[in-house]
């Protein structure tokens, strides 16, 4: 289930692609892009207790040019939307987007009739790969989302599934 990425080369080297995707899956560098409350949970995931560096994702790059995953963590306001779109375009291919939290999925608790300020969901301004609901989602949910992104990249899941009950 290789990403249906419109920029795939015409010629496919299946084993090379598999190797490239395996390399990409294991070193996804997130872009430090926190907007609101979910950014604090993203920070809590990057630090000692849930340590993203175990999966090679601990390198939070501030510059969009050096990052692979944009984790949209927080509410997207209409004033910020063009800025987010520019950031997305500055990221080199292959790139992915994770919508963290209800605000990034569908506007979350700030959706009401006649709202003038927010964009209801990150998928209105850029293609989103992984959705993580919660307000804010626990750090384990972000780790689960990143593992799901790796599964989407490499086609198989290397880690045990955890069901909470």
């Amino acid at each position, binding site marked *: 289930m290789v990403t249906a990425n419109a920029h795939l080369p015409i010629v496919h080297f299946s084993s090379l692609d598999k*190797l*490239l995707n*395996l*390399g*990409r*899956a*294991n*070193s996804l560098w997130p872009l430090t892009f926190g907007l609101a409350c979910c950014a604090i949970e993203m920070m809590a995931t990057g*630090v*000692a*207790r849930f*340590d993203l*560096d*175990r*999966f*090679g994702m*601990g390198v939070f*790059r*501030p*510059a969009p*040019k*050096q990052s*692979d995953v944009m984790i949209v963590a927080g509410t997207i306001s209409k004033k910020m939307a063009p800025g987010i779109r520019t950031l997305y375009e*500055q990221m*080199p*291919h*292959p790139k992915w987007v994770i919508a963290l939290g209800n605000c990034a999925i569908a506007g979350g608790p700030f959706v009401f009739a006649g709202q003038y300020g927010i964009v209801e969901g990150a998928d209105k301004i850029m293609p989103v790969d992984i959705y993580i609901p919660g307000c804010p989602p626990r750090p384990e949910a972000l780790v689960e989302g990143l593992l799901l992104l790796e599964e989407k990249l490499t086609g198989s899941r*290397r*880690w045990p599934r955890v069901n909470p009950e």
Partner: protein
Amino acid sequence: MSLFPEIIRIMAYVVGVLAFVGLNAAFLVWLERKVAGHIQRRIGPKEVGPFGVLQPVADGIKLISKQLVVPAQADSLLFRLSPVLTMTLAVTVFVVLPFGPSLVARDINIGLLLIFAFLSINVLALFIGGWGSNNKYAVVSAIRAVSQNVAYEVPMLIIVITMVMITSSMNLNVIVSQQGNLLQWHIFPWNGSILSPLAFLIFFVCTLAETNRAPFDLGEAESELVAGFHTEYSGMGFGLFFLGEYASVFVGCALASILFLGGWQCPLGIMPGVHWMLIKTYLLVFVVIWVRWTFPRTTLYGLLNLSWKVLVPFSLVILLVTAAQLKMPWPF
């Protein structure tokens, strides 16, 4: 003498040096993230291969397969030249480093001069990179990197001059062979000059500043200038800067161990060899990493004051004391 064995020897050493630089960068990436992890009471890379050993491989593959983006208004020649320049300078310096008694690519008698000639051009590469990427943050950080490197070249060279005065030769192999077992290393006051432990400390601080490592990483200050001079570099452009930085960290620490800790000499003097050289250098690299994850960043003025008001006077004092000590009959 016929040219053939010479060509084989050069080819072997070129391949050896390039392989070593690649492996060294991969190992340092892994070591830095593991040590940083444990300092911060977390694990660091673990899931990618046993103990996260394949993590640098995964990073390398990803960086190679990234799309190379050259900004539109960027000066494309300078933009592309800068990472290549940083990498070549860092690699050429490996030619004169004596890894073992007979394991040195080119044993020339002005080895030390060559090293410092290339290390000082490194600043130019950073400046070209910062200026070429036509990004305000990159320009500000390039200016900072230049003033920082210039400020720290002076005390470093003064210390190297004192060591050359003691060993009276710039050939690195000769310097190392003068130091026998542990008691004859130059770091101890009774070998070289009275103040040589202080000289070692100043030399170490200057290597930190030369290679833009924290607490002097003003060039690549993450929290102020987004990502410093390599803000606009993606994929392998950024990868080359990474490799160049780690190569120059290794060179700085190798030089410190050659000048002060007796490069490939064994502390007990029984079996010198390349393993001692690597052990000492990687111990110093560990201290470099340890310092990075403990201290915050200094300001530009704090950095320049430290160099011009503290390190330069101290190194001049060391120079004079050593000169006086060598000329006058001294009990040692």
